[in-house]
């Protein structure tokens, strides 16, 4: 009983001290996947993932026992990403305990967690802390704004074409990002842009099914089998 209490207590202890900014190198076997900067507060953590110096930053926030990924149109739960995506495997371990429980093996030094090892699907992911500093990150860095409607389906193939509610997705405004229905008189054909967006929204109804079939028969993409 006492041991169980100790385990529960250990699980609730923040991986990283509040008010810190740490940098981590991510490797899968011998291959470096990228670098993650982690901001820690007293109730949440934020991870900023870059695969290369010039590549775009992917932002993840751990709060309330869930890990979230920032996407166009709002934040989605990391657990809804494809299971084999490195982000889904690695990020929750760094955002624990605010982003949920983690079964990763954590090694610590005098400053806190220094190395995290995660085994998944026969692969070993290693996170190695490369720096640790104090940080005064503003609370807004840890705010989660869930994506409306499609939070549970992001990163499934169908959702790559937008939310399932086509009346919402019909225009750029429905994309939840950018200026709603942007139409300017600058020499561009905005009607044609809207036509493309509406067309994709219309196709979206059957696209999951069509895309799955398309990929299965062609043995390409996420549904090729054997992935």
């Amino acid at each position, binding site marked *: 009983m006492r041991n169980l209490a100790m385990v529960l207590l250990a699980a609730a202890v923040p991986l990283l001290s509040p008010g810190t900014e740490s940098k981590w190198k991510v490797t899968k076997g011998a291959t470096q996947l990228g670098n993650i900067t982690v901001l820690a507060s007293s109730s949440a953590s934020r991870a900023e993932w870059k695969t290369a110096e010039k*590549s775009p930053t992917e932002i993840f926030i751990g709060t309330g026992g869930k890990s979230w990924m920032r996407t166009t149109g709002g934040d989605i739960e990391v657990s809804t990403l494809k299971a084999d995506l490195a982000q889904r495997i690695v990020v929750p371990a760094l955002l624990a305990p605010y982003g949920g429980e983690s079964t990763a093996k954590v090694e610590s030094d005098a400053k806190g967690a220094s190395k995290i090892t995660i085994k998944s699907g026969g692969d070993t992911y290693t996170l190695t802390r490369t720096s640790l500093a104090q940080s005064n990150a503003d609370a807004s860095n840890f705010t989660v704004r869930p994506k409306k409607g499609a939070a549970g389906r992001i990163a499934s193939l169908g959702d790559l074409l937008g939310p399932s509610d086509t009346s919402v997705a019909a225009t*750029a405004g429905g994309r939840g990002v950018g200026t709603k229905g942007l139409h300017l008189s*600058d*020499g561009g054909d905005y009607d044609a842009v809207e036509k*493309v967006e509406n067309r*994709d929204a219309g196709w979206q109804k059957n696209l999951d099914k*069509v895309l799955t079939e398309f990929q299965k028969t062609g043995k*390409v*993409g996420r549904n090729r089998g054997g992935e």
Partner: protein
Amino acid sequence: MRVTNIAAAVLLVVTGTAQAQLGGLLNKLDPNKIAKTAKVAREAAREFTEAEEADIGRVVAARILNTYPLAKDEKVQKYVTLVGDTVAAYSTRPTLEWHFAVLNSDVVNAISAPGGFVFITTGALKEMHSEAELAGVLGHEIAHVTQKHILKEVKRSNVMAAGMVAAQSTSAGSQWLNNDYASKIGQVAIDKLFKTGLSRSDEAEADRIGVLLSDSAGYRAAEFINFLSTLQKLERTSAMKQLMATHPSPESREAALKPVIPSEPRGEVLADRWSEWTVNLSSGSS
């Protein structure tokens, strides 16, 4: 002694004048203007937000679609969307709202706009022989989007800073894009896409990532080399003029890519499926 006194007097006068001038200058400086200038500088240096990227993408896409109309062949539009979605799922931005569209033009080209718009001409499609070639070309354009190459050019052109000044001087309100500002952004993008091209390193990066994406998606990456070989044969034709002005030569691209292509042939070519979906292209009803 007398000389020293004169020198000291001259120094006092000079110093006094300099102080007076400096004081005058300082009096003329408006703290509000300094703050505004600093804000403009900050704006010019910062990264675009996703919302701004989406707006810029619409502006650029609208300019592209004003140059080339959409192809009417819905079958080929769907096909390009299916292949594009298949490849984009392996990019670093799988959750972007990708839009793939075919433009009706004999010009051989493929272009992209920020925010996830990818276009390919019927002229380019007619020169392909397999779905894997299409996957390689779309992968190249997807890479331009994920690596934000056009956004980088917009930023470099200082349009952002100019736009901030315009917005402040006109108190344009919450909408950050006005016609003039959008027109400038559109022009920067159109110049790069149709006239001068992106940097050689950006094109090389897009080639490299494009091949990796098509390979990851299960296509035979070497098919992209086949497409470059076709382009090489067409180099002197009028349909290739735009592509040749905006991209490195097909030979140099081919040479740079060879080390990246998997040495063992792997992945799907899907030439038959290509023929089935693009049957209307060859009949000229696009």
